[in-house]
């Protein structure tokens, strides 16, 4: 058993976040957030814009430091987890480096951890297989479509087998068809790797299709409005036409409506 297996993946205690505290542009982004995410869970953060969902993700990832409360990841502080390189991140913008070939992009976090060239090569080939881009290792990112770039970004985030994957609207810039395809791929990868995923989205159907649990946030300042359990079993393309899927989506939609965020 790996270290920290007895701890929840993410524990958020009374977290608040105020930007520009004491200054003229003071904004309370989050207030009194308590949250526990179990190891291996797929949790989605959803809410209207301004609810602080991306901020919460960045607090978990220690890219921001909370002004109140604390965050721990697998029993360690978020800061220790970041410096210990415990998690991978995927953004809406694939964020691949143009100057590195696809393979070298996937190997970047491994390089930073001092892996040998042969180990890196073996792992990046494996990752390319996982995201079904075996043929594209020697391409440059700009030679790939948006969906393919995002798959490389996921492969990069998973290359060092992080126990926690933080995703900030990773499919937000993709067209509907590509998006649904990528959601299926992500669930397959999640199933194969057993990693814990925290996923930010503003799409109701995406939240319903992907998650074990959906955290609905209310805006200004962001607070946890409700937590919705979703149990759809193994997802297949048919799941999207399943009545349970629709009822989960309806529950999420109603929660969002009550916080003033339904589109």
């Amino acid at each position: 058993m790996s270290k920290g297996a007895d701890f929840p993946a993410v524990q958020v205690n009374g977290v608040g976040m105020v930007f520009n505290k004491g200054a003229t542009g003071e904004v309370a982004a989050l207030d009194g957030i308590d949250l526990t995410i179990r190891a291996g869970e797929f949790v989605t953060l959803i809410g209207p814009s301004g609810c602080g969902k991306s901020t919460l993700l960045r607090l978990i990832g220690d890219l921001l430091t909370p002004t109140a409360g604390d965050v721990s990841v697998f029993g360690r502080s978020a800061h220790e987890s970041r410096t210990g390189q415990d998690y991978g991140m995927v953004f809406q913008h694939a964020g691949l480096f143009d100057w590195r070939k696809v393979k070298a992009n996937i190997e970047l976090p491994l390089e930073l951890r001092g892996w040998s060239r042969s180990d890196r090569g073996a792992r990046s080939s494996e990752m390319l297989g996982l995201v079904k881009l075996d043929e594209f290792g020697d391409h440059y990112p700009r030679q790939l479509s948006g969906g393919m770039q995002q798959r490389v970004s996921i492969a990069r985030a998973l290359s060092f087998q992080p126990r926690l994957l933080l995703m900030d609207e990773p499919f937000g810039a993709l067209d509907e068809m590509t998006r649904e395809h990528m959601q299926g791929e992500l669930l397959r990868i999640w199933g194969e790797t057993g990693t814990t995923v925290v996923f930010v989205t503003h799409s109701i159907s995406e939240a319903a299709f992907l998650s074990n649990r959906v955290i609905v946030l209310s805006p200004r300042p962001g607070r946890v409005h409700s937590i919705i359990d979703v149990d759809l079993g193994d997802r297949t393309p048919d799941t999207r036409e399943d009545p349970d899927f629709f009822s989960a989506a309806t529950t999420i939609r109603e929660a969002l409506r009550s916080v003033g965020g339904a589109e």
Partner: protein
Amino acid sequence: MNTRRFVEQARALGPALVVGLGGFILWEGAVRVFGISEFLLPKPTSILSELVAQWPVLRHAGWETGRIAVSGLLIGILAGATLAMFTTRFRVLNEGLTPLAVAVNATPIVALAPIFNAWFGITGILSNQAVVIAVVFFPVFINTAKGLTEVHPDEIELMHSYAAGEWTIMREVRIPNALPFFANALRVVAPLSVIAAIVAEYFGGPQDRIGNVITSNAGFARYDAAWAAIAVASAVGLALFAAALLVERVSMPWRLAVGGSDSNNNPGRET
């Protein structure tokens, strides 16, 4: 692959060669037909014969001026790029220096040449070199600093998520990101270094440099020889511009692979 690319490039050069050659023929014809006097516009053939006759002098002058331009260019590039890295790393420096550099860059620096002659003497190469360095430094500094700082915030966050330090971010993200900006500056400053060297030479100094060869020949109404010297100067400028393009290609293979920066929308292959 490489031969094909070579053939494609040769073919791309074709029209320019035809137009250039046609231009010379028109020029020659116009001077002959309209009887334009040689001191207003010498015939290309007169310039060419002067180029051959004066070749030892011109070659030497081209070398001397080229030496000043290239050394000034290299020092200016090195200084500009290095300072850009420091100012990116230390914000206070950046906020203080960048607006100042932009302002100085907007001033006609070559106008300083006579002052530099007084400061650094007119017998050596230092005063003319200083003009070249000053002219090259600012565009390189400003562009490189822009490329080092204009990085997508997600890319910086990503590096932070890997617990990468500032120096690693500089090496892995900022410097490669700045390369296209730096290359743009190179394209501008490479020919500019020759211009700066020659204009600086107009203000005096040893007589064996292109600028002085042009002014003294023009002074004696030997316009064909002056034009021959200008041709040498153009050749040096073109050579440096070509070198800048080569550096651009060699340092950014990914741009070549995607056929330039304009092809970021490749056909999707999603199913």
